[in-house]
Structures are given as C-alpha cells and as structure tokens.
C-alpha cells in the first residue's frame, strides 16, 4: 500500500499495480472501512480498480496528518471475501435487433450467438470501478472465449440500457452515449435513477448476474427495440 499526493486537498492510496479480483477486494474492504467512519472531514472517497482517492478537509488534516491517519487505519486491513456483497440480477434481452455486435462477437469466437449469450450470462461479475458516465460500472471478468476489443470507430450513439463488452470487461450504458463497446443486448434496468436516494442501485461492492429474457418479457418490462 502506498499513499501519494493527488492534489492540495487529496491523496490517493494505491493498493497494487495490477488488476485482479484479490486486489479489488482489498480496495472494497478499505472503502467499506473508510465509509464506516462516517467522517465528514473525508469529503470524497472514490474507489477504482486498484486505488482509492480521498479528498479531505484541510482545516482538519494537513498532508502529513492524513497520511499518518490512513496508514494507521489501513495497516492491518482485514480483506473481506465476496460473500457479504449483494448480488444483483439484471434482465437482458439478447436479441439481434438490440445486440448489434452479437453476431460479430460470435463469428470472432467461432461459436453461435446462443453460446455467446450463454457464456456472457452464466458468470457472476464483480464491479471494479464506476465512472465515465454516472452509474457506468466496469464489471469483470468476461470469459476468455468471448473477449473482444473495442470497436475501432466508436459509435456516435449507444442507446441507454445497452449491455456491452470490451476486452475482458462488461457494462451497461446508463444513458445514451457515444461509445466503442460491443453491444450484446439491452436491459430496462436503471443504473442511474434520480428517484433513488442512493442515485444508483449499484456500488463498487455489488456483484452482477445477467439473466437472459425473451423479447416478450423485455417489451413487457417497457423495453424499447429501436436504436
């Protein structure tokens, strides 16, 4: 663990320099501990794959003091396993009219689209980071068989709810956005919902399972087929 300067009022804690499930569990455990302090002088606590950024009140802590405080707090960090993390099911319609890249991902892997769907939906994914757009959760790891790089030319518009993969990561677009990920399907699940007090049902501590549904079911849930 290493604590470095980020800005006049922020430090960044690096837990490792490689992405792995174990390193992510370290981040999540430390994040949980930091949140549990409920310390108003820790203004922002922002976890990512291997790091946590902390913005603090400089009228309470100077740089040396925050470093000592964090080192002390995290030196015997107990890394929790994933059993305490909430599993969230997301219904996905993997139809070719919404999964624009389904066929291409299948051809590339030399398997059927049905197999791509089965592979993508049979795994439980961990959230490694949230960003890019509000509620955009980077989940991993996608099975090696269907790993697909980003599109060379990003699309101008990826519709809200699109479920997509890029390299070994998968995500759901929380709103319409330009993007270069390969789209496999679509969901009506809201990742950024202003009616929720927490704004998003997903946090870095969530685990995600995609559940294939029929076109009828998707439409019944209010799904939109058009792009």
């Amino acid at each position, binding site marked *: 663990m290493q604590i470095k300067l980020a800005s006049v009022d922020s430090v960044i804690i690096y837990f490792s320099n490689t992405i792995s499930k174990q390193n992510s569990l370290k981040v999540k455990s430390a994040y949980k501990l930091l949140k549990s302090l409920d310390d108003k002088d820790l203004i922002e606590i*922002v976890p990512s794959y291997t790091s946590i*950024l902390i913005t603090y009140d*400089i009228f309470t802590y100077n740089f040396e003091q925050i470093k000592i405080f964090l080192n002390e707090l995290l030196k015997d960090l107990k890394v929790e396993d994933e059993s305490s993390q909430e599993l969230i099911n997301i219904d996905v319609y993997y139809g070719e009219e919404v999964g624009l890249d389904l066929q291409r991902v299948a051809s590339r892997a030399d398997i059927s689209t049905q197999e791509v769907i089965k592979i993508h939906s049979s795994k439980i994914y961990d959230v490694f980071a*949230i960003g890019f757009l509000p509620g955009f959760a980077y989940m991993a790891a996608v099975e090696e068989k269907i790993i697909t790089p980003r599109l060379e030319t990003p699309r101008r518009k990826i519709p809200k709810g699109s479920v997509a993969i890029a390299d070994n990561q998968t995500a759901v677009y929380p709103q319409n956005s330009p993007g270069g990920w390969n789209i496999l399907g679509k969901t009506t699940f809201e990742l950024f919902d*202003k009616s929720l007090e927490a704004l998003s049902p997903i946090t870095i501590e969530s685990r995600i399972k995609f559940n294939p549904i029929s076109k009828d079911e998707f439409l019944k849930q209010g799904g939109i087929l058009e792009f």
Partner: protein
Amino acid sequence: MSFKVIKAGIFTTLQDRGRFGFTHLGVTNSGVMDEYSALAAQKLLDNAQDTNILEITFAPVELKADANTSFCVTGALCEVFINEQLKNSWQVHKIQKGDVVKVQIILEGQRVYLAVKNGFDIAKEFGSNSTTIKESLGGISGIQIKNADILPYKQNSEDIINRWHENHIPKYEKELVLRVILSYQEESFSKEEKEKFFNSTYTITQDFNRMACKLSGEKILSSLDGIISEAITFGSIQIPKDGQPIILLKERQTIGGYPKIGTVLSIDCFKLAQMRIDTKVRFEPIDINTAQDKLRDFYSTFA
C-alpha cells in the same frame, strides 16, 4: 417573488460550491468555476458560502425583479445596468419590484457571477444546485437557464452596503502562472521532461470548457503509455499520448486512464476559469505545505 428571465444568455447556469459524496458513482462535483468571484459575491451579500449563484458565460442577460432584494455581480469585467443605469460590479445594489437588471457585455474575463440576498429558492438535487447538463442534475430541470424561467427569491429590504476592495478585484492578465503540486504519476516523467514542463509557455486552446482546459505547446512525455483508471481531482494535469497537457476542471470525468504529472493549485484554477482562448500560461512548482497554507488563507478570507 422572483426574477423573470427576459434574456437568459447562451450559457447561464445555476451553481453553488458543488455536489459532493456521489463521485463514487461517477457523478462529477460541478460547481462554480471561479470560486474567488463567487465567494466574494456571497460575502458581500452576507450569504452562506454555499448559497447558489448564476454563472454567466455569454451576455446579454436580462432579469426582471418582481420583489425587493439586494444583488451583486462579480467575476469577469462587465457592464451591469439597473433600468439602463450603469452600476458597479463587486458592489451590492438594492432593487425594487419592476426593476430590470442587465449584464450587457463582458469586456474581460470569461465568467460573470450574479448572486441575490439569501440565494434563489430552487430545490437542490443530491445536495446541490450545481448544474451538470450531461448528468441532467441541478439548476432548473438539469439544464441551463432559459428565457421565461422564473428564479424565485425571498423578498428582502435590508440595507446591505458592501463593496469589494478595489485592490482585491482581479485583473485578468495576458499571462497566467499556475502553481503545480507534483502528484500522481509524476515519477513517470523524467527530470528532462519536468524541466521542459516548467520552463515552457503554453497556450490555452479552444478546447476549454467547464470540464477541462487543453493547452498547446512543448510536448511532455511520460514513460507510461496509460495507467489503470483512477479517480481524478480538480486541477489534475493529464498528459495524453500527444503530450499536450489537459487541466481537469469542475465537470471532469470522475475517473481516467492518462498519466498525470501534477495538479494545479485550486486557487489558480479559479484564475484560469477567467482566461480566454490564446492566453499564455506557465507552470511553477509549489510544495504541498505551502500550497495548503495558501488554500487555508484563501478560504479564511471569505469566512
């Protein structure tokens, strides 16, 4: 009791000090770009520091009052009128029912702030009035102020006679020095690259908005191609592959994967917020203890 917006201007947004505590979900902080000017306006009106305020980027803006209050305008050098009568910026003025307030033309700088006594009565979203259009959060329904919008305030008839000291009104110079705290991936920049960075003059390009300010000038190289995405703070200086620095500002993305050489002291980001395209900037190193002293002094001025 409100202002009716007669002319909204092309990009006038409601802001405050920003939205905190949702960054872990990808929600940016947003907030006023130039805290010096905004906090000065609140202090002049004897408002709480986090009171909301209009950030005006293009004139003309015209508001019609239907109740008494006091207001003041700070920030970029501009012409302010009450009913066609020219008034001083950086000074509190009383207005009465029927008065028309106009920000006619911005002469120097980029952003004008207009505050009223006790702020506008507009519901906060997730702890803040700050408008972030890409997130549809804050302001009035998540977008910029439009013609015919209503900006409610509580009637106020206090006599507030305050004026910012002439010597403390910022002058917007042709060249700006930005003090930088070496941070994040600074070790991935060699001694030579750092020297280049601190000894060169950069130019503000047209890629300058509430999210970021892209500079052009001497190329800086990191030994890293990219990094594992991590959270980025206000003022951090990303060096993408083209070697041209990008300073991240109030509406920055919350995480990013470019190496960063350092972070501009926030006080200097507030000055940067008032610079126009083609302004020259230079970087100067500052150590963390001095930087924190400066920032504490800065906020104490407005306490």
